[in-house]
């Protein structure tokens, strides 16, 4: 029996010819990424680590530090990086949300394994990488020992077909899938098919990132010309991609007709079987709108936001917050004028951080408020008060909604 994409990577990294669903395998990890919070909460300096060239440190969740606890972590991180010769250290100013930094710096390589202390690490699956978010103790352990274990879970494959309408983004595709098929706990997601070539990298990254919201283990994409171009332009070479075998054994294969999709919105609480086409939610009033996070703070997300907002103003009584996913995204969006358009419309542009997405800083919501967000989670209480409601949609839909003050189809603003 052949192997799925993820089975192939895990078998290879375990030094095995083959693996089967249910097997537990010990694998070598190619890149381990620590985030700032690892250093602010009970940091333990190790005596030795496995390989400093296989470690990166990214300051992202709480920067610039909103609390003394967070501020206290910074010196630990800086000294640790210096003492152990960790060159891939992305300090405040060269920082960004870890998954964006991983993408920009070519830290995720096809066919390899990447681990990081954040649950959205599956984002790097867009690069054909077996990428997993793991808890702080496990990341610490991998940093020290260079390896960890995984249990082989069944794989669900999504076959994209056709061409998506221009306004439909990776977020809409994901919200549609989450609404149709629900949770995928203890399963891997694999994306491919003839329609993949029409889905650009930033949309693939959104889709891969949000595998966490349907509780999946790994989310991985195949390698095609679009990904190869991205890798070439980011200096990623000499990789061994993992494609599924023709006779791979899937738990399910689901075909997605891209041409039939339209913008989607998830209602508060969960994305799982809880979405609607945007047209069915128009009229829903909002108080805050947020564009940002590892899922949708990318340059292309700011580009479409600027396009929607140009010549318009954020509605009275509504706050639009925009958080670029990295300092590099921030600088490029500034250079291209996107931030000017966004700020001119009355939005607040923040520094790059995980910030509002996880309700920690930079724009939490209050009791009774309604937020529409392009970030990663709409769990109750995720972005602040548990008495607030969080709708989730694409950056285009969020920007259009900020203009009108109600959930709005961006096509009505753009036309």
């Amino acid at each position: 029996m052949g192997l799925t994409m993820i089975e192939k990577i895990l078998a290879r990294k375990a030094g095995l010819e083959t693996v089967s669903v249910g097997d537990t395998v010990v694998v070598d990890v190619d890149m381990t990424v620590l985030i700032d919070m690892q250093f602010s909460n009970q940091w333990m300096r190790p005596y030795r680590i496995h390989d400093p060239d296989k470690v990166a440190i990214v300051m992202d969740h709480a920067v610039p530090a909103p609390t003394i606890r967070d501020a206290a972590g910074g010196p630990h991180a800086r000294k640790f990086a210096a003492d152990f010769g960790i060159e891939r250290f992305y300090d405040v100013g060269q920082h960004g949300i870890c998954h964006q930094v991983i993408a920009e710096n070519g830290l995720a390589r096809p066919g390899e394994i990447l681990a990081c202390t954040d649950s959205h690490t599956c984002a790097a699956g867009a690069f054909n990488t077996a990428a997993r978010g793991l808890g702080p103790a496990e990341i610490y352990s991998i940093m020290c020992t260079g390896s960890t274990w995984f249990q082989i879970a069944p794989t669900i494959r999504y076959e994209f077909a056709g061409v998506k309408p221009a306004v439909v983004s990776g977020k809409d595709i994901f919200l549609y899938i989450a609404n149709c098929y629900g949770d995928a706990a203890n399963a891997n997601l694999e994306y491919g098919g003839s329609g993949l070539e029409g889905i650009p990298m930033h949309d693939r990254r959104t889709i891969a990132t949000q595998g966490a919201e349907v509780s999946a283990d790994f989310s991985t994409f195949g390698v095609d010309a679009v990904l190869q171009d991205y890798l070439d332009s980011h200096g990623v070479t000499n990789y061994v991609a993992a494609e599924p075998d023709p006779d791979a054994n899937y738990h399910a294969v689901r075909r997605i007709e891209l041409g039939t999709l339209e913008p989607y919105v998830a209602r508060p609480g969960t994305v799982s079987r809880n979405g609607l086409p945007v047209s069915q939610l128009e009229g829903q009033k909002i108080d805050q709108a947020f564009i940002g996070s590892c899922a949708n703070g990318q340059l292309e997300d700011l580009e479409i936001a600027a396009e929607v907002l140009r010549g318009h103003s954020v509605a009275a009584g509504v706050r639009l917050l925009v958080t670029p996913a990295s300092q590099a995204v921030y600088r490029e969006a500034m250079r291209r004028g996107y931030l000017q358009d966004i700020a001119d419309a009355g939005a607040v542009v923040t520094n790059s951080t995980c910030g509002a997405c996880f309700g920690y800083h930079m724009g939490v919501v209050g009791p009774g408020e309604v937020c529409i967000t392009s970030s990663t989670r709409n769990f109750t209480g995720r972005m602040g008060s548990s008495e607030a409601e969080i709708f989730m949609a694409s950056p285009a839909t969020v920007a259009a909604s900020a203009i009108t003050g109600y959930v709005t189809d961006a096509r009505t603003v753009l036309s």
Partner: protein
Amino acid sequence: MSLAFSGRVWVFGNSLDTDGMYPGFAMKMDPPEAARHVFYQVRPGWTDQVSPGDIVVAGKNFGIGSSRPVSALFIELGVAGLVAEEFNSLFFRNAVNAALPAMTLPAATSIFSDGDTGTFDLTDGTWRNETTGASGNVPKLPDMILDIIASGGLMARLVAQGYLPAEPIDDRRS
């Protein structure tokens, strides 16, 4: 940490997410204070009712969400083990890595009611509702996973393996 646990069970529903157990605002607190917010939405006041040795029983997709170390808060509250019909795999790993024993038991929320006494043993996969007499067994976890729990969790194991000091060192002054 023991691989067998027995105690009073608290039964919760499906898809309990990590933000509902370790909310963002609690991440600014020390663990003892943060632990007072576990299940603050779904069962306000629960942290005043739970006693050391109690067991949390949940439904499907238990622990969807973040990598934040929720298990540390359960340990802070004295919870002896977690049982769920289905775990989010990251949440399950975090429990194992913190040496908090966890058992997957399909239909757990039908088998157990609030206040029942349950006994669970990961070494052989057996479980028993001491209140109703129902019992059974689930597939045994791989030895590799049981060893992590039995050795006191990943950090304790790294100390034993010589990677870590037993106590944090203030490296900023070194």
